[in-house]
């Protein structure tokens, strides 16, 4: 799941300052699950924009903003989109980017995309994968240091780890502590004994 967050409303208004007629496109996959691009959020955005003097002429909620079939398919459901002079995408950067490909109307996004993560038991888990293109997660008990260690270290913790917590955030466990405990439980500490070569960046 792609994790994204709302931009401050003032910033969205600034982005849209030259436009009056707005069409909103949400995303019924990640953004909707994260409550930053589902129906409810679209309606809240609509009334906010209307209060700010904009004319919101319609909205759509495709299954996934990042994999729309075609402009026709999108416009089929609500023809008013053709009259919009700006499209506001309430989804991740990938969604905004795919939608920009199929229309000449200017596309804006209301979200800041932060990471590839997940949700487990209702808790949002950011930074589960950095899409490095050369997956090593299998060596680390399914916990990716490339994504979860702020220093992307592959050969063990930095000196900033204190009492199992991360140097950059004392509320966060050091990922190497998590990897150590997991591999110890699995009796596979041999995996971290190995010296890992520099990542080949894609």
């Amino acid at each position, binding site marked *: 799941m792609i994790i994204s967050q709302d931009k401050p409303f003032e910033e969205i208004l600034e982005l849209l300052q030259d436009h009056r007629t707005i069409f909103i496109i949400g995303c019924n996959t990640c953004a909707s699950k994260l409550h930053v691009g589902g129906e409810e959020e679209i309606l809240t955005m609509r009334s906010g924009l209307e209060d700010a003097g904009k004319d919101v002429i319609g909205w759509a909620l495709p299954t996934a903003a990042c994999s729309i079939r075609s402009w026709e398919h999108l416009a089929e459901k609500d023809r008013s989109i053709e009259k919009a002079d700006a499209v506001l995408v309430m989804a991740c950067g990938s969604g905004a980017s795919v939608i920009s490909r199929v229309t000449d109307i200017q596309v804006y996004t209301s979200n800041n995309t932060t990471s590839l993560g997940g949700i487990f038991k209702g808790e949002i888990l950011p930074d589960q994968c950095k899409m490095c293109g050369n997956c090593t997660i299998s060596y680390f008990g399914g916990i990716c240091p490339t994504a979860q260690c702020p*220093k*992307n*270290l592959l050969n*063990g913790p930095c*000196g*900033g*780890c204190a009492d199992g917590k991360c*140097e950059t955030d004392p509320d966060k466990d050091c990922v190497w502590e998590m990897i*150590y405990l997991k591999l110890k439980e699995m009796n596979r500490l041999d995996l971290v004994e190995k010296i890992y070569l520099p990542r080949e960046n894609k």
Partner: protein
Amino acid sequence: MHSLFQDKIRSGSFVITAEITPPKGTDTTKAVENADMLRGCVDALNITDNNRAVMRMSPVALGKILKDRGHEVIVQMTCRDRNRLALQSELLGAYALGIENICVMTGDHVKSGDHQGAKAVYDLDSVQLLSMIRKMMNGSDLYGNPLDSAPEFMVGAVSNIDPGQAMQMLKFKKKILEGADFIQTQAIYDPDLFESFMEYAREFKVPVIAGIIPLKSAGMARFMNENVPGIHIGEDLIERMEQARDPVHEGFEISCEVISRIRPICQGIHLMPIGQHLNTQRLLEMAGFSK
């Protein structure tokens, strides 16, 4: 130029190094004064690389300036600010300027510094950087392309000293395997803990240089306990600092006690006082090192 520091490390003699922080600006007068105060009483000056992710002058540039004044220098090189290309070209440049000693570290995250939105690079980690330097010393770059002339560095690395931290000890081991010539530790306040680290470290036969930061006040001790990872200053020491009429002197006394306990079991000390080295010479005299 012949390196006395390297001779001492190789022959097992006790070394004294001291930390120098480059200026935040172009004027090196203060840093040079600071270094000159240590002339004759330390074996090498260890120059920080954007320490705590606070932007300062390049340690290679200051290293060259100090080297030209007859100081032996160790240039710190972190993984935070340069990718593999930049690290290698910086290392070649440093060597061409006469810098022969490098101390490798991961580097504090940009979140602790004054450029918090900077890209934290960490293209290599410290273990990979050590192994890349070995490769360069053997005549090729990271990707095996031949160098037309190879550097010959003495390369140090840093380590945590708590043998109870399995992953930290594993990292220590990896650094030795990848060719660290010496290990510099964080500040030591607990000689017992250091002793148990040395028991673990002994089999790796690597020279260990113990970090020393003289305490200046009880407040500083508490601050360090809370903010500096891996540092545990015992309540008894904090109490002593609290009661002391002259806390700075008491801090020196504590450092001297630590030094006399660890001196027989390690191969050097690395002095990192807060601020200038005004009193470093006095501390060394108190600790029984003659000039």
